[in-house]
């Protein structure tokens, strides 16, 4: 067993660590405070080849593996969870469907731009009445001759307000009510009838835009269809499996940031004449963080490695996502506790970590859905 990163994986991680520390961390609090999209650093992620990290060289990407992809998600999240999510919405949720299900023309048309950051992507599956039950979505794509006419609305779409390309899931079989009637489309967001709704006011991830999208008699050419008609749900779920690796790695990154801030603070902060790090109560919190962060990292690396080996990884990705997000939620709460009153203020970053992490227990499949997926593997139901 080779229990270490390859030199390439380490080099990628080190580069992103340096980029995140030097260019993202200094602007993270500002974008959080101002709820502004970090376009400059998002474009830099493109220049550095992160936004299409797994795209093969022939389509303008660096062709890195999924272990590297996951390491990038962790390193970005250490500096700022929003950047990690912006990265994921592009590098995983937008690139993945095209890479795995697109035809040659679609790959050549979109992948170079998604890789360089020239275009940003979004993934539009969720609707107001269709969250965990994604197969029940009601946005329709009605076939009319050589075209599809799309009507409906999407909700909570990451990058929705800034995206140039939208991977859209809509019902092509009007008679169906379940997952079988869903198809996927690649939509230029400048298409007539594509409308961007409000940027949600959220608990955290303030620098990542989360929009409603509306489609009013939006006409798509038949070439916009991704995969075959009725294949949409399969595409959606396959994409989410990789997204779960990304979410697990991002959670690990947020927890690491909370942990590192807590260790530094506990060594610095003195009460009763000595650093609070000398108190066993604090030490135990830090020890628990240390162990669970390492466990989460190993879980997501295992899932990413399985994906790279082209082995089944759905179960592993769900395990990683469930454990890492819940672990990180606890770690950030403890980080605020260790910081005491200071932790509750915006003078310290830990309150941001605590706000940012909560969504990781919800998106890319809630903790409850992860347990459902895992239980199916366990009991074979």
């Amino acid at each position, binding site marked *: 067993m080779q229990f270490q990163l390859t*030199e*390439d994986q380490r*080099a*990628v991680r080190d*580069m992103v660590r*340096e*980029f995140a520390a*030097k260019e993202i961390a200094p602007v993270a609090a500002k974008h959080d405070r101002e709820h502004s999209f970090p376009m400059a650093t998002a474009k830099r992620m493109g*220049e*550095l*080849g*992160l936004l299409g*990290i797994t795209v093969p*060289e022939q389509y303008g*990407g*660096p*062709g*890195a593996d999924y272990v590297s992809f996951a390491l990038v998600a962790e390193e970005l999240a250490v500096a700022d969870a929003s950047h990690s999510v912006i990265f994921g919405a592009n590098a995983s949720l937008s690139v993945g469907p095209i890479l795995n299900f697109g035809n040659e023309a679609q790959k050549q048309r979109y992948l170079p731009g998604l890789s360089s950051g020239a275009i940003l992507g979004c993934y539009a599956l969720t609707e107001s009445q269709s969250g965990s039950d994604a197969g029940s979505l009601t946005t329709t794509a009605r076939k009319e001759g050589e075209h599809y006419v799309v009507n409906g609305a999407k909700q909570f779409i990451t990058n929705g307000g800034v995206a140039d390309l939208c991977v859209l899931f809509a019902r092509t079989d009007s008679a169906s009510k379940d997952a079988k009637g869903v198809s996927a489309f690649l939509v230029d967001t400048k298409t007539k009838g594509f409308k961007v709704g409000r940027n949600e006011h959220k608990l955290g991830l303030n620098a990542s835009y989360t929009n409603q999208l509306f489609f009013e008699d939006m006409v798509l050419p038949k070439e916009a269809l991704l995969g075959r008609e009725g294949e949409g749900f399969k595409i959606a779920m396959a994409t989410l499996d990789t997204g779960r690796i990304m979410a697990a790695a991002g959670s690990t990154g947020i927890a690491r940031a909370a942990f590192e801030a807590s260790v530094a603070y506990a060594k610095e902060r003195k009460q009763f004449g000595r650093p609070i790090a000398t108190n066993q109560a604090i030490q135990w919190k830090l020890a628990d963080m240390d162990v669970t962060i390492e466990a989460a990292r190993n879980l997501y690396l295992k899932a990413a490695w399985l994906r790279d080996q082209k082995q089944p990884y759905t179960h592993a990705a769900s395990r990683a996502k469930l454990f890492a997000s819940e672990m990180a939620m606890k770690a950030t709460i403890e980080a605020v506790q260790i910081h005491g009153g200071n932790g509750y203020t915006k003078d310290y970053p830990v309150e941001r970590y605590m706000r940012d992490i909560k969504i990781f227990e919800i998106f890319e499949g809630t903790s409850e859905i992860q347990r459902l997926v895992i239980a199916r593997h366990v009991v074979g139901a």
Partner: protein
Amino acid sequence: MVKIAVLVKMAPDVTQLKIDPTTLAPRMEGLPWKVSDFDKNAIEAAVKLKEKGQATKITAYTFNGGPNALNLIKEPLAMGCDEAVVLTGPDTDGSGIARVLAEAIKKDGADLVFAGEMSIDRIAGEVGPRVAALLGMPSLVNTQEVLGVEGGKLKATRDGEPAETVEVALPCAATFNDEANKPRLPALMQILGAGKKPIRQVKTSDLGIADATLARKMAMTGNKAPKQERKNILFTGTDAAEQLAAALKKEGVA
């Protein structure tokens, strides 16, 4: 056809250095190694020249870069060097290091030799100018900005007030400090492509240098951090602020 040789030193990451509180000696165990920061400024200057079309080939040379040198050398390659020469030989001092590098460069040929002003660990600042001397090249130190290579001359500015503008006939050598430019962060494509670039491993014996001639003439016999002692003065009373201000003035702080 302007060929650039860049001198690259692998050094312990001194930003992570810890000092033993009792002996005051640096704790070197487990310290990660990296490309010495100033050398990245030299690499950046070389790559910029190549991007301007004023240089054709950049070769990075490193000597005795430790067990991880073959991996660390990929960073200069990712930044834009075309090939690397990883030299190994007996432990030696600054004059020996310069001789090894000069011999290797002489064999390959170079019109420009770029190096960091000094290394992050030893801060000696001797190897660049020594290599220039051994190669019989004029040596430009404290180079600020490379303006270009034109008509067989390197045009550059030197750090200073006011800054000097200079022209140096090729072949020549130049050293750079950390304010000369902003070394680039290589993109993923470059990082993953670095492993495909040629790396030549050369021993000092391959260069015809006898081990005995590299024996150290200079050796470090002690290395202790300065003692940092706090004054621990406590000001009390209602005029504590005034007392502190007076003390600071006396120290020449304010």
